[in-house]
């Protein structure tokens, strides 16, 4: 993968990158959130998976176009795992899109306590030169 850019999802540097996941990351860098769709049964996955959970057929990446979601649940992490200690406190939220698909990410611009059911907007961030992410804004 020498030609490919070194990219990581989120706040850590998991090296378990595959060609499929690399494609996801390169799209994300272009501010496109990709889901995946099973080529056999059509089931959609967010976040994407390369093999269908139901029939183990290959899935293909396609852009997830919904931008607005509702807060399904949240946590404010005050005491963090060691690698994220310097970032705490941070808010982790499960957002639910109108389609029912969900995504787990940080909410980065909260000024008051989160409330289940509140509106969330999908956004993107470059954490540093190699780390990129999707995130929620209120």
């Amino acid at each position: 993968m020498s030609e490919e850019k070194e990219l990581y999802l989120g706040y850590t540097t998991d090296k378990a990158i595959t060609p499929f996941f690399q494609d996801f990351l390169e799209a994300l860098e272009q501010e496109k959130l990709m889901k995946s769709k099973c080529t056999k049964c059509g089931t959609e996955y967010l976040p994407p998976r390369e093999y269908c959970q139901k029939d183990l057929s290959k899935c293909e990446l396609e852009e997830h176009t919904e931008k607005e979601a509702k807060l399904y649940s949240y946590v404010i992490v005050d005491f963090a795992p060691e690698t994220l200690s310097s970032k705490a406190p941070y808010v982790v939220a499960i957002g639910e899109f109108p389609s029912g698909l969900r995504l787990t990410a940080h909410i980065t611009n909260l000024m008051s306590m989160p409330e289940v059911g509140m509106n969330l907007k999908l956004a993107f961030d470059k954490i540093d030169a190699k780390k990129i992410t999707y995130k929620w804004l209120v």
Partner: protein
Amino acid sequence: MARKVAVVAGGHSKFGKRYDATMRELSAEAYKPIYDEGITQDKIDATVLSYAASQFTGQGAGSALIADYIGLYDKPHLRVESACTTGTASLRAAWGMVAAGLYDVMLVLGVEQMNRVSSATATEYMSQAGDMRWEYPYGISFPAFYALMASRYMHEYDMPHDVLAKIAVKSHHYGAQNPKAHLPREVSFEEANNAIPICRPLNLYDCSLITDGAAAVVIAAEDRVNEFTDRPMWIKGIGAGASSMKIQDRESLTSIPGAKHAAKAAYEMAGVGPDDIDMAQVHDCFTIAELIAYEDLGFAEPGKGREIVENKENYHTGRIPVNCDGGLKSKGHPLGATGVSMTYEIMKQMRGEAENQSRQIEDVKLGLAHNVGQSGQFVNVFIFERGW
């Protein structure tokens, strides 16, 4: 037809921050009382020796180390791992081998040594049991997974945090009377309700402890039980369940699907229902987990678990005594030892041997252990029956 299997003896180390011991010495402490009762190494056919996470010690293939240390180096052994259900998964594996006739007498020993690393490092290791690609990069610790359940539960059932604090008060009330407990002291409602936040809405007193400790039990086939005890505790029902890996994929966060499934299977196998249970040891890794357990086990309707708390039905003289040893909250939670410790506690209660009468539950005929791994990916429910 499977043979009947009973728990015939048990041992338990002191739980706590055990800087005076490692997994070796802790294991010896758990096996010693069993040895002293006469169940010496030569009487044990095989062992399951388990711990949840090797990162804490750096020791690979640790069952060999433990077996050797307690004098069982020449007996077959293996390690079973399933996060915080490691203890009951080991018991389930051993039960299968004895029921099938492969062995007659087995030792099941669970141990964890967690305090040789900082709490932040321990939190890091445990968060690596989340999905490494999609969850771990967002710093979702174990308290965070349960806080996601708590936020949703509090929203759907309009429940204040007070209810959770009352569960912590009960756990510490009983832990204070358990000489084996990690943090044996009472806490007031105000202290528990207003403690420092860990993963809001959960605070310090909603969390179980990071504990070093070990527990062991011996199980035997029906035709050998009399050689060891006249007070056998029969394994009457076993149920296991599982839930999706990523927490966002759960249809509901107010219940653990694998726990409901495990409970149903255990009740069916035992031929009993929730009303027949005289005491329960539930997996209160967080106070919200204990509340959800009341509902998943059928002690309360969905959303009504708080009534058990408000009416103190979960105290030792109540309708359904729960965790009258302090639970994971006050007794402590050495991951791999926890499920074995639950089994040990039920045996002690049945025998009327809780060290302190103020936590002794009267006349226990049926006891239930509910052991959950990760945020519900693994669940085991055991129902034990007094055999005398």
